[in-house]
């Protein structure tokens, strides 16, 4: 038995719950080790002090006070409102300074994150929008000026790009379901104001071999009233005046692209807005 082991056995030794061998080892160690013997004596003295502690008499006015409180309670059987008030008064709403500081800091951090749209708020609409016969068909949505083949889009994914309720068309029969479009930018633009989680217009651009993508990008960058951002390799963000939308459609003409919502094709679209936010997603052919 060593010095470190001894204190863990103090209570068992006091209660005489050690085996004969353990007790012999315990007592033997005390004889051999003066420091452990001193510590054991201190422990015994502590216990003696505890056992000798004289209980204090209850204050003489304690019993009358309790009985008076009980009588008061019986005399005024509390209504539900009084019970609620009593419960409220019993609650302890005080918090420690670190807790209060932590709560305030967390609230401020959340407010900043929400304000900067790092946390979408309100949350995006559910991906699966109900499809009804009265809704327009895919070919009506996926239409731009030009004769290029149109790519029908699973517009349920487009619906997730905006809290607005876009009409979800029935997917064309020749379209293979299962494609997913990451319509919400997953990276942040370095340009302030272009961190759009909910663009007004979404364009999905199917990049074909014949498309001169560089020229399209250069054209976009050369528009003096457009703001351009690239949050990711496959995503481009534009912010432009509503009157510039026809110019965008011109640039997209002849390309295999789809635009949503359908109303974005109308000359009156977003005329009441100061600027239109457009997300263009480039999709490589499979």
């Amino acid at each position, binding site marked *: 038995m060593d010095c470190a082991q001894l204190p863990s056995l103090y209570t068992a030794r006091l209660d005489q719950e050690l085996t004969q061998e353990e007790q012999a080892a315990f007592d033997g160690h005390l004889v051999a080790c003066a420091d452990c013997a001193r510590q054991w004596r*201190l422990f015994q003295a502590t216990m003696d002090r*505890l056992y000798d*502690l004289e209980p*204090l008499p209850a204050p003489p006015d*304690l019993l009358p*006070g*309790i009985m008076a409180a009980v009588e008061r*309670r019986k005399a005024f059987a509390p209504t539900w409102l009084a019970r609620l008030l009593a419960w409220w008064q019993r609650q302890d709403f005080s918090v420690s300074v670190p807790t209060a500081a932590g709560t305030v800091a967390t609230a401020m951090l959340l407010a900043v994150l929400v304000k900067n749209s790092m946390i979408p708020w309100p949350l995006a609409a559910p991906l699966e929008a109900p499809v009804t016969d009265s809704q327009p068909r895919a070919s009506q949505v996926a239409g731009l000026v030009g004769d290029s083949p149109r790519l029908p889009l699973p517009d349920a994914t487009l619906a997730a790009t905006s809290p607005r309720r876009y009409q979800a068309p029935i997917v064309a029969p020749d379209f293979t379901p299962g494609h997913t479009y990451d319509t919400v930018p997953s990276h942040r633009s370095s340009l302030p104001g272009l961190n759009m989680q909910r663009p007004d217009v979404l364009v999905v651009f199917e990049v074909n071999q014949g498309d001169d993508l560089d020229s399209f990008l250069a054209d976009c960058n050369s528009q003096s009233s457009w703001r351009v951002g690239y949050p990711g390799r496959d995503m481009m963000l534009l912010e432009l005046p509503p009157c510039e939308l026809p110019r965008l459609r011109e640039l997209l003409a002849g390309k295999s692209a789809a635009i949503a919502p359908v109303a974005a094709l109308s000359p009156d679209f977003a005329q009441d807005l100061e600027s239109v936010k457009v997300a263009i997603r480039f999709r490589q052919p499979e």
Partner: protein
Amino acid sequence: MPKQEENESAELVRALRNGDDRAFADLVRLHQGRIYNLALNYVKDEEEAKDLTQDIFITVHRSLASLRDEAKFGAWLYQLALNHCRNRYKRLQRRGFFRSSSVDDPDYPLHLTDGESPEGLLGRRDQDRLVRLAIAELAPAEKEIILLRDIEELSYDEIGDILAIPLGTVKSKLNRARLALKSRLEKIL
């Protein structure tokens, strides 16, 4: 709790349930001393302990219907009292109530410097006060087990029931709590 007191409590609870209002006063009279001392050793302030004891017995009167077995009144009373003590202690602690006095605090009136013996300087009552102060400064779990075993002299089984922990845990926690108290009291031993 002694068997005789346990039986007497059970009788009083039965009488109270049968409409004998005087039984409650007898019940308070029987237990007020131990509950007051428990509260005092927990929060180390006489006024707070008195207020706490009053709250505890008012709750006993209000909640007696929830006690299923009269024979277990003692354990039920201790559980209820410890819950009240814990809540009050936390509230007082948050308000900085315990910040000013400690056995090791040089400003404490009964502070002893190294080498001084308490016998010559302190009377029995002052020494008791220091021991109570040292108990009150223990962590709540350590304090509770010391109070139940070494002050209230409850059995290990009773403590296990009250604190809802196994027998082996009661013993190991008690040993740790006693060691913690010893280290706090070394100066006055």
